[in-house]
């Protein structure tokens, strides 16, 4: 039986992933990865490492540690800043999977002598006729295939997701029964390096804020913003627009950004048609297997994590981009975010959302 290196984050999911593989009799080692340099305010790496250490001690497996802070900074964080600088909404966790976890981490594990790596992702890998496919996890509320669509055949063939057939509550139960010290640890939320801190404060440290006006769709000034980078399409909270700007009492939503005039454009009411997109362009398309969609092929898609499948048709423009037409307009398709395609439970791949300009 091969040797498997499990990515240990210090959380309950990776702990249970390791525990399952140990139960199955595999030769297991844990590997803790640090992607962000010491910064007590925003990052809990040291606490997480201690948790990972105790989990590995309980499972009686070794724990190694590796630092990819430089790689993360160069290949994930710089892109993240570039995107925010351009007024877009990037998803660094997707890039982190492609560039760090399923590349650097995988290679390091291989150097350590591992045949495969395993992580606590809620997704499944299936091999059919020597072709590896990515599937949604059984727990549809937790399914993380959205974050993994950029993987290709090679990393999938060398990875295992032991939690793919489990619900989150099963995972908690396994952790409790196995006496894992992180059984009750709170799930982490948000972008890993920001943690649960104030995102605005975090971004402020890296990008200059350029305050400007908030303009309604009928070109009236309804307020001021502290910098376009702090807002994303469809955002409702934190606009700070009081009453008196309209007869309607409906809440305001971000519908767009005018990067040239530095204006944030807003509308009122969640049903406002400006917030809904019939079409978008998907660029930087990546298909996991040999699958290439035919024009007008009907697919299911998600334009954000945990969204219900949206049905759409795809019209390829070239090898890398396509027009996506939704059967029912989708709410707030934010440029820079990913659209991920599915055929039932099979994750086919995805691309980056760009506005469709007629």
């Amino acid at each position, binding site marked *: 039986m091969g040797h498997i290196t499990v990515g240990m984050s210090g959380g309950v999911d990776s702990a249970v992933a390791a525990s399952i593989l140990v139960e199955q009799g595999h030769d297991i080692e844990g590997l*803790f990865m640090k992607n962000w340099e*010491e910064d007590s305010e925003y990052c809990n790496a040291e606490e997480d*490492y201690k948790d990972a250490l105790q989990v590995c001690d309980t499972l009686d497996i*070794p724990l*190694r*540690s590796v*630092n990819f802070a430089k790689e993360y900074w160069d290949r994930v964080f710089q892109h993240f800043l570039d995107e925010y600088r351009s007024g877009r909404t990037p998803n660094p966790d997707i890039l982190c999977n492609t560039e760090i976890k399923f590349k650097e981490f995988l290679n*390091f594990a291989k*150097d350590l*002598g591992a045949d495969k790596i395993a992580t606590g992702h809620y997704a499944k890998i299936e091999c059919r006729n020597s072709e590896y496919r990515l599937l949604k996890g059984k727990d549809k509320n937790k399914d993380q295939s959205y974050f993994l669509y950029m993987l290709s055949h090679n990393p999938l063939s060398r990875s295992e997701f032991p939690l793919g057939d489990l619900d989150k509550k099963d995972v908690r139960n396994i952790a409790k029964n196995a006496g894992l010290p992180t059984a009750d640890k709170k799930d982490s939320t948000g972008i890993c390096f920001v943690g649960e801190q104030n995102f605005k404060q975090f971004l402020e440290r890296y990008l200059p804020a350029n305050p400007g006006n908030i303009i309604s769709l009928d070109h009236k000034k309804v307020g001021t913003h502290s910098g376009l980078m702090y807002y994303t399409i469809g955002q409702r909270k934190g606009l700070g627009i009081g009453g008196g700007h309209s007869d309607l009492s409906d809440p305001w939503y971000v519908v767009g950004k005018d990067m040239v005039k530095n204006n944030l454009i807003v509308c009122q009411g969640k049903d406002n048609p400006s917030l809904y997109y019939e079409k978008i362009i998907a660029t930087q398309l990546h298909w996991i297997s040999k699958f290439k969609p035919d024009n007008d092929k009907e697919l299911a898609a998600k334009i954000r994590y945990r969204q219900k499948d949206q049905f759409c048709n795809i019209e390829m423009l070239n090898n890398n981009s396509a027009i996506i037409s939704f059967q029912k307009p989708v709410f707030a398709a934010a440029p820079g975010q990913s659209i991920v395609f599915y055929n039932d439970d099979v994750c086919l791949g995805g691309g980056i959302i760009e506005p469709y300009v007629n």
Partner: protein
Amino acid sequence: MYYFDHSATTPVHSDVLDLMHSIQKDVYGNPSSVHSQGRKARSLIETARKQVAKAIGTIPNQIIFTSGGTEANNQVFWSLLNQNNIHVVSDTIEHPAVLKVLSEMEPHGIDYDLVTVNKNGRISIEDIESEIQENTGLISIMLANNEMGTIQPIKEIVALARENNILVHSDAVQCLGKMPLDVNDLGVDYLSLSAHKFYGPKGIGILYFKNKDSLSSLMIGGGQEIGLRAGTENIASIAGMGLAAELVTNQLDHHINELASFEAHFKSELKTIFPNAIFNGDANNKLPGLVCVSFPGYRSDILMAKLDRANFAVSSGSACGTGNVKPSRVLSEMGVNDETNISTLRFSFGASNTSEQVDLLLFELKTILTG
């Protein structure tokens, strides 16, 4: 487990363990109490003080017990705040228990300069001399380095300091049991030791001082340790350290010879297995049994993981809070480039090793490096 990390810490000698166990069980009195239990505890502490004093060639009333080398260093430095001459000369390859203390003290008015080392990790007297200022009150130079074992010319430094009326502190935690250690011969004013480096327990150490008047207490309270370290004494650990110091100095020649022979054998065989191996440190001035070697083309964390898997404990660079290995600051200061730096492992032999174990280690390294 094959343990080759004695510079990090040592296993406790079995006689020391037995003594500590019996004390924890039977001697629960407060050494400040005058009843029989208290007197017994006091007696154990003073026996230990004599043992440690003898081990470093001094008299008992020039030693106080601390929680270890770090605390002893801190006490010397923080005491400077009550002195007139508050400039310190130290060097760039000191342990963080010196360097971080100095930088932490800077806002409190302490001023310091650090001399650099040569490619073997040696400090030059001339460099120290050129950093001496009118208000220099202390020179603090480690007796031997923990990462590659280079021994510093402390006697010459002391001679220079005397001419300038400067006190000298030396962090000697790596040294007891690996070289003759005589504070009067060295001439230092302060010396720090830690029991867990010489087969004693963790959490206990000493500060040697020539003159108590220059010291202040970091711990204020019941006035223990002649008012220099308040708090009820850690009797079992103190007694354990006393015995450990006695055992290691009684066996000193034997231990040094054994370490030197492990080292010589290991180096020559390793050179055959891996001719590109680079041995860091000063071959003519080093602690025996501590081998700092770079394996160009390899990563120390991978090598360490593979050795760990085969149950061999060695170390590498300086591990931080998340277990990552970073390039060693000490090696960087010696001019070792980053790539060679992160290919470096430290093997530190000790009393728990046998020559068969050293051969097993060589065999495992051969498998890893040539397999």
